[in-house]
Each structure stands twice: as structure tokens, then as C-alpha cells.
């Protein structure tokens, strides 16, 4: 886990939060981790600790943990396809008012709007798309980069 200025992990990554997310790029803490779920645990724990320290309710922390695990799992397993030579990048800022989280991988990206709705009767027993739906359900806003390998998530504390 380390900070890195600019390298292959930056492909398709925007370091500028989307408009309205309420944080400036210089307020973000940026971590680059090897492409394993074990390594991704550290940014997750740091962010969850920051949420507790900033007074987020357990109900909100549950949702952010869920969304964050889905984003990190997608990055490691689907984006980087389990390639141990690749990295994931996590940027975050947590204040008493909001949590802003970015997760990026080095994969080719995907088109989130083409993922099937997992709550339709015909899709209920299929795993596809449930993680993405949960991110959208539990976060205030979820926005993907044009390339689809970088997701920004905002959760307001209210």
C-alpha cells in the first residue's frame, strides 16, 4: 500500500471528484494497492474507521461497507481480472457531512448502463448486476468514468 504520483494504475482514472461531490482533489487521501482482496482490505478498514470517527450512524456504515466491498471486488476480480501484476487505486475523503470514495482499476472498463436489473423476476436468481445495484441503492450518488474502470461514490451523512 503506497502513494504513487502517476503510473500505469492511472489509466482511465480521474482524480477530480464529479461536480457536486463537495470535496476538492487536494482533500483526498489516495492509496494504491496490489490487485488482491486481502490488500484491498486496508483501504476499506481506513474508510470505515474514518466514518466511525466522523459520527456516521451504523446504518449508513453498513451501506457504505456494502457498496465499497462491491466496488473493490469488481475492481479486483472483474476490472483487473485477478491479474496480480495490476493495481487498484482508492481515493477518499470523509467529513462529518459526507464520504467521497473513488475506486479504480487498470482494466478495460465496462458499460454500467448495460448491466441487467437484478431485481427483475427473471434475474432474481442470477448473481449478475446485484453489486452495482447495491452501490446505487446505498450511496447518495454513484458515477462512473467514461471508460468505466473508475467509480466515484458519494454518501451524505443524513
Amino acid at each position, binding site marked *: 500500500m503506497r502513494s504513487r504520483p502517476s503510473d500505469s494504475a492511472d489509466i482511465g482514472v480521474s482524480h477530480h471528484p464529479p461536480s457536486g461531490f463537495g470535496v476538492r482533489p487536494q482533500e483526498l487521501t489516495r492509496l494504491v494497492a496490489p490487485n488482491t482482496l486481502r490488500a484491498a*482490505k486496508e483501504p476499506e478498514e481506513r474508510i470505515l474507521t474514518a466514518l466511525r470517527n466522523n459520527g456516521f450512524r451504523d446504518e449508513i456504515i453498513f451501506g457504505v461497507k*456494502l457498496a465499497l466491498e462491491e466496488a473493490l471486488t469488481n475492481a479486483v476480480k472483474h476490472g483487473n481480472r485477478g491479474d496480480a501484476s495490476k493495481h487498484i487505486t482508492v481515493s477518499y475523503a470523509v467529513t462529518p457531512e459526507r464520504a467521497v470514495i473513488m475506486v479504480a482499476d487498470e482494466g478495460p472498463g465496462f458499460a454500467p448502463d448495460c448491466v441487467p436489473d437484478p431485481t427483475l423476476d427473471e434475474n432474481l*436468481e442470477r448473481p449478475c448486476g*446485484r453489486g452495482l445495484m447495491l452501490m446505487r441503492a446505498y450511496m447518495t450518488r454513484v458515477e462512473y468514468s467514461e471508460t468505466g474502470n473508475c467509480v466515484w461514490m458519494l454518501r451524505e451523512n443524513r
Partner: protein
Amino acid sequence: MDASRESLGAATYAVSTRLEGATHVVSVTGSIQWEHADEFQDYLPTLINAETPNLVLDFSALKFINSSGLSALLAAHRQAREHGGELRLATKQGDIIRLLHITRVDALIQVHETPEDALAAIA
């Protein structure tokens, strides 16, 4: 089976199982998150067969489950159905109930307040 551990500051994951007639009652405490989801998914199918086709999952003390854990539930539900049995859940945890509702998993799997209620519904 009993399994319990702490790892890398992660929440505890523990499973205990008992047999009630043709129904296994599996109590899961702690969190089903990414380091546990595969184990959970691999374990449930070992309990379901023609002699014991029913499963009650007691989530009374479960604090968290991710989408991989939900997929494991749905796979076990399908397997139980294929053996002529059924899978039912028991929990009063608001976060878990809301998650089951948002994902519409509760449209396929009945949720009861207690494992005793779930067992009675199967009987």
C-alpha cells in the same frame, strides 16, 4: 461444524449447525464478507440432499452480508427446491431485512423472526 476466527481486523465469522429432523439449522454470527463468502457458499450445498432437503439459516446474530453471500443463499435455495425441500431465513436485524428487501431476495426466500418460527413453517 464450528468455525470461528478473527483476521486482519475483520469482523468475526462463525457458523454452527444442528439437525432438526430433515432440516439443518445453520446459525451464522458476525459478518459474511469477502474473506468468508466463498467458504459460506461452499458449505451450504454439503448440507442439502434427499434425506435433509431443508435449511433454516439463523441470521439472528449476523451483522453484515455482501452480494456474494446473497448469491450463496439463492444457490442453496435453488438446491433445496430441487430436492423437494425449502430454505427459510430467521432474523430481526433491520439492516439485513432491508438488504433482503432491496435486492428482492425476500420474494424468493421467506424471512421469519426466529429460527423456531422458520422450523414450524417448514414442518
